[in-house]
């Protein structure tokens, strides 16, 4: 059962389109996770890489050991963004999510309302856009 803990987009027009893309990409994430379980190759990385390319966007995925999924949608025209930069963005997201989990005032499963998490995401989006 997948439900969003946190979702944010910029620019904010056409937000629903981004929400829809993230939702459909979850199927691809689930495919990759189950493929990982059966793989004979020692492929157990958390970073899932490019999930699927569309004409306008590239979608990247990352899954934690606790099966929390991070999905990132980036404009295709942004060719300057390289793989290791995407990886480091996911690592930052993972670290901030872990901090949220360790906050005693946070109830696991709730929507994330931490301001610290918000400002980390904002600064990351500003750097890219």
């Amino acid at each position, binding site marked *: 059962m997948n439900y969003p803990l946190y979702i944010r987009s910029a620019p904010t027009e056409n937000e629903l389109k981004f929400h829809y893309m993230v939702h459909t990409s979850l199927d691809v994430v689930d495919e990759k996770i189950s493929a990982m*379980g059966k793989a004979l190759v020692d492929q*157990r*990385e958390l970073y899932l890489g490019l999930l699927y390319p569309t004409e306008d966007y590239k979608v990247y995925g990352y899954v934690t*050991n*606790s099966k929390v999924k991070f999905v990132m949608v980036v404009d295709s025209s942004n060719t300057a963004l390289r793989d290791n930069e995407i990886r480091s963005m996911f690592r930052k997201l*993972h*670290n901030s999510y872990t901090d949220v*989990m360790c906050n005693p005032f946070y109830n*696991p499963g709730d929507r994330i309302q931490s301001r610290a998490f918000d400002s980390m995401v904002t600064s990351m989006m500003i750097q890219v856009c």
Partner: protein
Amino acid sequence: MADAALFEFLHMEMVAELWAHHSDPGPGGTPLLTLLRQIFSREHRTSLYAVLGQKMSLSVLEGMGFRVGQALGERLPQETLAFREELDVLKFLCKDLWVAVFHKQMDSLRTNHQGTYVLQDNSFPLLIRMASGPQYLEEAPKFLAFTCGLLRGTLSTLGIKSLVTASVASLPTCKFQVVIQKT
């Protein structure tokens, strides 16, 4: 080194604090206690309060351990690769979790390969200062409740629903039994 002592003292105080209220409940109390007061006579009441109170304190301790376990389940495996199967998760509990919290590894892990695991610690740090042998055996459960919750919480974050119980035959050796709940 000081970190280990800090957690041990905190844990001791948690148990002591939760048990301090069991001797004399007083005229107040929850609606449940008021109702029971009316049903049962005086002689039966004290022991009933004691049993109820103890059950509640044990579940409070277990609940605290559970929340801490949930957070540790997110923080500790952060840099490690994805777990391939259930046994890997249990090994993670015995090595990484135990070292992070108790600065030692679990001494043995056994399984029936059908969802039940027994984790044995031959010198459990929370019991080791108490006794060495059968003394204080009745007191041991309260010092294990938090840790049972800790195991259950970590398993829960890693996607495994379980039931964790602990048993002591002779301090400071204790066994944690983890039974995986199939949904």
